[in-house]
């Protein structure tokens, strides 16, 4: 059987001899296993890009968000301005964000997508990191300081373990929404699985390709969420007894 994934309208599968079919007559299934097997390399390539962009954006966002949250904790005015600024960034639609960055990082470069995604993860993570740090009881910190803990040890031994559940919740939200947002990167040609979604749309509304991309995104998000949830369980063994 001829493989029809790339040119879905070049003829209907299994009906040789009928020649070219009109767009409405050609079968256009919602899901086609032969599309997935036949285009495996392409799909895996885009999946790889999707994962790379997500991991890089979340990691960079976390690296920048942690010092910002630590700084913002120092005062009401600072935390207010960090949160205010972050909600402004958050309100900017992703397409506009990539468009803003395009003149600086290039309209066809993956950097544009990465920087935009990092800004969004940064905003989510700063809020959650700050909430986690503010949730650490002040008397616990004072007791640790009274016991002679320096700033570094105070952070590593007191703040971090106590704020870890909130930190992880933030990382999970950031990761899942970043996986969904990578698709918008398609505007620069670097949209990971979003390339399949829009590619299928442009190949005469080829549903199998669109659905493969969409389902791939959702599955990737769920897998990432489950992995992070597992990591959280591993890192915070003491919360397990409390959890119901």
């Amino acid at each position: 059987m001829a493989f029809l994934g790339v040119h879905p309208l070049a003829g209907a599968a299994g009906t040789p001899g009928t020649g070219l079919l009109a767009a409405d007559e050609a079968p256009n299934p919602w899901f086609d296993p032969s599309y997935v097997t036949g285009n495996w390399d392409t799909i895996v390539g885009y999946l790889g890009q999707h994962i790379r962009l997500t991991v890089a954006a979340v990691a960079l966002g976390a690296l920048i968000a942690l010092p910002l949250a630590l700084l913002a904790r120092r005062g009401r005015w600072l935390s207010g301005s960090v949160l205010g600024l972050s909600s402004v960034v958050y309100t900017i639609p992703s397409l506009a964000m990539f468009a803003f960055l395009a003149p600086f990082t290039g309209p066809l470069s993956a950097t544009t997508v990465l920087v935009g995604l990092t800004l969004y993860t940064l905003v989510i993570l700063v809020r959650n990191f700050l909430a986690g740090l503010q949730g650490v009881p002040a008397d616990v910190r004072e007791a640790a300081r009274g016991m002679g803990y320096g700033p570094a040890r105070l952070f590593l031994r007191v703040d971090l373990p106590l704020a870890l559940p909130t930190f992880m919740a933030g990382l999970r939200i950031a990761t899942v929404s970043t996986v969904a947002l990578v698709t918008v990167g398609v505007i620069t040609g670097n949209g990971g699985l979003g390339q399949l979604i829009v590619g299928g749309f442009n190949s005469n509304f080829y549903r199998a390709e669109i659905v493969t991309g969409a389902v791939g995104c959702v599955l990737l998000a769920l897998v990432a969420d489950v992995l992070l949830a597992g990591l959280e369980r591993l890192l915070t063994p003491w919360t397990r007894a409390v959890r119901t």
Partner: protein
Amino acid sequence: MDEGGPDVTAFGDALRYLNDPFNWTRSGGILDLLLEHLAISAAAVLLAAVLAIPGGVLLGRSTRGAGAIVVLSNVSRAVPTLALLTVFAVTPIGFSDTATVLALAVFAFPPMLTNTFVGFREVDRDVREAARAMGMSHGQLLARVEFPLALPLVMTGVRTAGVQVVATATLAALVGGGGLGRIINLGFGQQDLGQILAGALIVAALALLTELVLVTLSWAVTPGPRRLPFARVHRGTAAGQPEPAAAGIPL
């Protein structure tokens, strides 16, 4: 390209694009796209609100549904808006404003449902009991006690959904839909940095303006002692709780 580099040129081009009255008033120009954008967004939010707010009220007053709502709000975060817009566009509905409205309504649904649910769930049990002891009927209890108390969160849901829909409506342009996203999409298609930037400015301004208008609106309709808008500091909710989705998902 002048010494200012590509950025400066792009900004100049963007200003020139925005400063040309013809770009605004011609048919299919910025004003037309803006109207279309707002009409699509309003229809989507209304459609979702008609379903989500009564649903949230029902679930919030009953004792069940918390688990389902947590799952819904988590899963909705994982579904890319672009995917849903595309899928709706390739159904027999075809790519039209109807498909866009339906896809956006699906996304406006979870924040409104979650917030309405949390709002009604968190009405103080004692207050409810006192109202009943005063002889209030079921309807009076709902209209005069529970609804006013839940209103701030209901409005948070409407605001979140509204801003999200206005922002997401730009993505419709990637799959043949209308709205302001077309300017950006066309700009990328032509590699015209000025137009890209002009579109970004318009879309971002519209999103921020929507947020502003909706915050003011919810401030105006909320009864009781009024906290000034923009002075709220969000506190994170505990993990596992249905977060009131004040921040929602990025758009």
